[in-house]
């Protein structure tokens, strides 16, 4: 037997072939290095198979995936994800618009808003202006009265003189 286990393995199609292969059993009796290598080979397969069994979907997710296939068999995952993306983008746009409107309305309603304060201050200043005008008018009127008084006094003097 000249072939070592490294070479023999290439001809082994399935795991069952290992145990039924005479070439292997004969060679393993003769070669210690190959015996060790062969043990490692079997361990390796066992470990990999065991690991694979631990890689699985949760039952809940497996049921969800099945449900997705049955309920929407015309759409693949990519189409479903595209739809979800479109819905998410539309929802985000709606959220932005509605929050903008909400803020705008809040600003209009609130007496504390800057625009309103500004308006009030303008009105107040206009009022002040009005008041000033009224005060001025009164002053002028008084002045007129004073002027009239002067006139009256003048008239009185003229009258007195005439008398």
């Amino acid at each position, binding site marked *: 037997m000249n072939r070592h286990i*490294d070479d023999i*393995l*290439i*001809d082994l*199609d*399935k*795991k069952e072939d290992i145990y039924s292969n005479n070439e292997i059993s004969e060679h393993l009796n003769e070669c210690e290095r190959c015996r060790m*290598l062969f043990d*490692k*080979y079997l*361990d*390796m*397969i066992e*470990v*990999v*198979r*065991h*690991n*694979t*069994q*631990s*890689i*699985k*979907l949760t*039952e809940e*997710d*497996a*049921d969800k*995936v*099945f*449900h*997705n*296939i*049955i309920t929407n*068999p*015309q759409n*693949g*995952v*990519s189409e479903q*994800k595209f739809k979800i993306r479109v819905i998410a983008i539309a929802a985000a746009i709606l959220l932005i618009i509605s929050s903008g409107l909400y803020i705008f309305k809040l600003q209009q309603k609130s007496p504390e808003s800057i625009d309103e304060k500004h308006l009030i201050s303008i009105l107040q200043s206009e009022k002040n202006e009005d008041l000033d005008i009224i005060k001025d008018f009164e002053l002028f009127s008084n002045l007129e009265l004073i002027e009239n008084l002067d006139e009256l006094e003048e008239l009185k003097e003229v009258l007195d003189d005439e008398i």
Partner: protein
Amino acid sequence: MFKVLKDLRQKGFDYLNLSDKELIDRFIRGDDKAFRFLYERYVNRIYSMAYRFCRNYETSKDITQEVFLRLYQKKERYNPVISFNTFFYRLAYNCILNYLRDHKEQPIDEWSMQQITTHPASPEENLFATESARRIEKIIDELPERQKTAFILNKIEGLSYNEIAEVMNLNLNVVKSLIHRATLKVLEVENE
């Protein structure tokens, strides 16, 4: 067992003893219940295969859904001359390849290697076995794409060289060579 199958069994449907071929035949004839049993039989095999390439739970879940969806949509394309195993793994292999081509940069789950456990007798053996399992997984993870596929299909899924040649659309000798090279790489690292 999944909820969908529990419900079916309660209603008196039990196809567990049917072969894959019988199930796919019934499914093609319009029996959707047969699809449910095929799903249960293959879902985690397809998922674990996808996971070995993506190392991401959500992505592997999506690929699994895509594979079964294609089976659902294109069941008529099944050719009874080849085994269902070969037909279905070919479908899965193509889905995984398509995905990898479209998503070269993808997140990898950190917890994946911690998931790997074994059932040895003592804590010392436990440590060794876990370390050994992680080393082996790392080597398999780093194998070139075709070597990895051929290795997984042969050593884990138990497909023959001929079936793998059909699945991967390769020459039989190329498949033998791919598996042999992958096996030697794993054994070399185990020997270090």
